[in-house]
């Protein structure tokens, strides 16, 4: 299999440029209910959020600021959280990243990683705290394995996104 080669004068279709990142995040959100894992405590990292962060940190002008809401709605439907959890938390994360970017002029790979870990930690802790409203009594220590998985898997997801982004840019 040969690597894709850009052809001079060709530009990728608008559809491909716009839809690829969104489809990526949607598939990542739909991953937990498709995998045949029957786990007894939360184990898988929030794949949807991690793909969203990877795209957002790679291309800042890819999406409008409100993208967290529609993608979060799909994630809520898929993950089983109360509808609105990810809509609210992802919106906060996207807005916060935008505000951080106006402060920090230069971002390194390690900054991205740290931002992603903190965002995952915020989302996991936030979704547990929001589930307390409806009467759940999950303790916050349950998010530790998930946070660890997020931190370890994020570099891999960045590589995957970089590969897909390369394909996206090729005409």
């Amino acid at each position: 299999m040969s690597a894709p080669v850009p052809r001079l004068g060709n530009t990728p279709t608008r559809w491909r440029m716009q839809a690829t990142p969104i489809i990526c995040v949607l598939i990542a959100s739909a991953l937990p209910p498709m995998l045949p894992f029957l786990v007894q405590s939360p184990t898988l990292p929030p794949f949807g959020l991690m793909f969203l962060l990877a795209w957002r940190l790679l291309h800042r002008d890819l999406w409008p600021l409100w993208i967290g809401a529609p993608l979060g709605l799909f994630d809520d439907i898929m993950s089983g959280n109360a509808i609105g959890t990810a809509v609210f938390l992802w919106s906060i994360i996207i807005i916060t990243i935008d505000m951080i970017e106006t402060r920090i002029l230069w971002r390194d790979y390690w900054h991205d990683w740290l931002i992603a870990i903190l965002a995952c930690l915020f989302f996991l802790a936030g979704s547990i705290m929001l589930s307390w409203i409806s009467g759940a009594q999950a303790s916050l220590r349950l998010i530790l394995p998930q946070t660890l998985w997020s931190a370890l898997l994020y570099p891999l997801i960045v590589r995957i996104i970089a590969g897909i982004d390369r394909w996206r840019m090729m005409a």
Partner: protein
Amino acid sequence: MASASSRRPGVNRRAQYGLFASYVIAIAAGLAGLLALILSVADPAGFSVVRAYTAEITRPVAATLSSMVKGIGSIDEELFAYVNAGSQNAALRRQVETNRIKIIQAQAIEQENIRLKKLLQLTDATDAEVATAQLISSSSSISRRIARMNAGSRRGVTIGMPVRAPEGLIGRVLIVGPNSADVLLLTDSQNIVPVRRARDNVAGISSGKDDGTVEIRPLSAGRNPFKPGDIMVTTGTGGLYSPNTPVAVIVAVREGTATAVPLASPTRVEAVMVERPYEANIPDPRAGMQSANTNETEAP
């Protein structure tokens, strides 16, 4: 990466307004999410239709993958059993001897039970089972403990039905789609089951801890009556779960509460049974009396 231009509009008035508008839309969308969250807390069934139908999309993938990995999951157990074969053989033989005696006793008790039930004109409801299904996936990325099974309303499953495995109770049906249903597992902190100790009638309440164990709180005040190794079964109070379904075995006792592990682990059960709520199986006492009356009138 240098700061890009579109989020730093500079003196361009139009770009400034655009940026401001995008912030307003984003914050409004986030707040709409918070509103939806409050609505879904007030009315948990409201969004379940959406979720039930999206489950139809993911079900084929999950069912195919789960049928592929069923064999892999138990490899470690089989290896372990192989290593312990010798000592296990001797222990099992002793157990068979004691069980044989108990089976004979149980058969005698069963006969007596049937006779007594006939005397009381109670019919034993055996049609409680609605469907048999497999658990195909679970909510593996969030703190709630929900499993998905491959049977839904087309096979008669409705919301609230208890789900059990041969080993014990699994949970109850939360959301139903045409071909799939979500089961609120015993280990979810919103699943509360009235239980009692199997060997005597010390009652308690079981609620999940979201980490694979359940918490058993005794109903009676005072000293905690439970000890590690106690087996808890359902009482049938509330009319949902049929009585004497095995629930959990206690592994640790702390002040006031006890931690228990469910006897039927969703990760290991081959198939689950969906049953009718227990209350629906209790025959109407008036119907029983009527049939008794007709018997009396027919007899002479």
